[in-house]
């Protein structure tokens, strides 16, 4: 418990804004590597895949915060907005790389979104992220009120598994890596099924 208290104490003193700068570093590094030949012979695919994967990591990190607090007592919630917004910017960049550097042809992009289930699913997950990113600020929280705001942000529980399914569908054959991520997402969602409201009522 000393460790948890130590971390919680440290977290209290740390600001969350440096996360945004820190989060930008890997993206800049990735594009720099791609332009200077550091990503092998097919840099577009590497950039596209890495951004998607890192976006999924951030989404999973965001989903892990509540269970970590409930089961381990770790209070990391002050970083959750930054993690969520970073996830949005990673997935947005992932999408833009696919549009501009990979597919390139606008007519084909629209056809792909409609015709290819894995793209339809990925796109749906991205569109669900939009209102969440737009309302990830104090002003929106006040305007909506905590109940509506929380209701809206429950979209996370739908869009993160969709993102993981998108990864499972994009690879050839049944590969283990995306299935592991999907399992982690499902586990993090399952941990939320505990009847917390009743427990709170009993404690009162």
């Amino acid at each position, binding site marked *: 418990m000393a460790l948890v208290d130590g971390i919680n104490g440290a977290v209290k003193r740390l600001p969350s804004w440096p996360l945004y700068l820190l989060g930008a570093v890997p993206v800049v590094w990735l594009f720099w590597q791609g332009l200077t030949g550091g990503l092998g012979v*097919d840099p577009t695919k590497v950039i596209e895949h890495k951004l998607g994967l890192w976006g999924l990591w951030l989404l999973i990190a965001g989903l892990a915060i509540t269970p970590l607090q409930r089961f381990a007592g770790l209070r990391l919630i002050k970083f959750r907005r930054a993690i969520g917004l970073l996830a949005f910017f990673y997935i947005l960049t992932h999408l833009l790389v696919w549009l501009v550097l990979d597919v390139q042809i606008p007519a084909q992009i629209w056809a792909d979104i409609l015709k290819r289930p894995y793209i339809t699913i990925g796109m749906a997950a991205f569109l669900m992220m939009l209102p969440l990113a737009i309302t990830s600020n104090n002003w929106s929280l006040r305007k909506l009120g905590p109940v509506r705001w929380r209701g809206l942000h429950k979209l996370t529980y739908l869009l993160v598994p969709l993102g993981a399914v998108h990864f499972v569908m*994009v690879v050839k*054959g049944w590969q283990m890596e995306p299935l592991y991520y999907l399992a982690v997402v499902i586990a993090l969602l399952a941990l939320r099924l505990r009847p917390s409201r009743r427990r709170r009522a009993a404690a009162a």
Partner: protein
Amino acid sequence: MAGRWKNDLNWSDTTPKAAWLNRRQIMAGIGAAAFGGIAGPALAGLGAVKSDFSTVEEPNPLDHITSYCNYYEFGTGKEDPARNAHMLNTDGWQVEIDGLVDKPGTWTMDDILAGTTLEERIYRFRCVEAWSMVIPWVGFELSDLLARVGVQSGAKYVAFETALRPDEMPGVRSPVIDWPYVEGLRLDEAMNPLTILATGLYDEPIPNQNGAPIRLVVPWKYGFKSIKSIVRISLTDKEPPTSWNKTNGREYGFYSNVNPTVDHPRWSQASERVIGGGILAKRKPTLLFNGYGEQVADLYDGMDLAKFY
């Protein structure tokens, strides 16, 4: 058969080897020459003869071809084969040739290459994942080998099988597909002069990650049809099972001819990313039969290519 094409090109017309070897290899070669007094076998070359079937397009540098591979027996990442394929021991390689042939049996690489003239075939290579390269293979026509074993009249297909060696192939621990990898061609496809068995690349023995010691190359079909590290060739009267078709029949058909108008369910095949172009390169339109229609289109006369994809 080698040498059936005549042209007025001389060896002086070829690209000097130093121009395509990357700098590291040149330095390693110079180092070896300085140390040993001779250049050593690495620079000896296979001495493959030119072929009119070669494209005039500029081949990808060797390091593109050897560092970016799909060879799932060594892992599903593009760089995994380059990292892991050294584990494969190709010494004493044997190929079983059986089924509807006059002379079934086990062939060593020496048996296979005895009396064979190796040709350089610079072919376009189009992956089903919508990327492409140009590759200077070295090999011989599959029909030459089939003529030597004697194809019986009932044979209609040729089935191929890749080695399955769990101790040397870390990727087969994962059931991505049903191992061993198997592929097949219709007999007339196998007999087409474009279809080769490749044993070399850039006039050197083919690296393990590219399918050593012997692999199929069928340039008008998606790359996965060109099965690597072959241990078995069987002549059959029925269409043989093929690995990707067994894994996902909706996405990968038996024919798998390159066709810009028949999309893969998950992506368009209308265009391709040319490997080596960098992140700002434009996509290139994909050609029907990968541009080899003149040689192979008549194989599919009257067939609905959208149905037999």
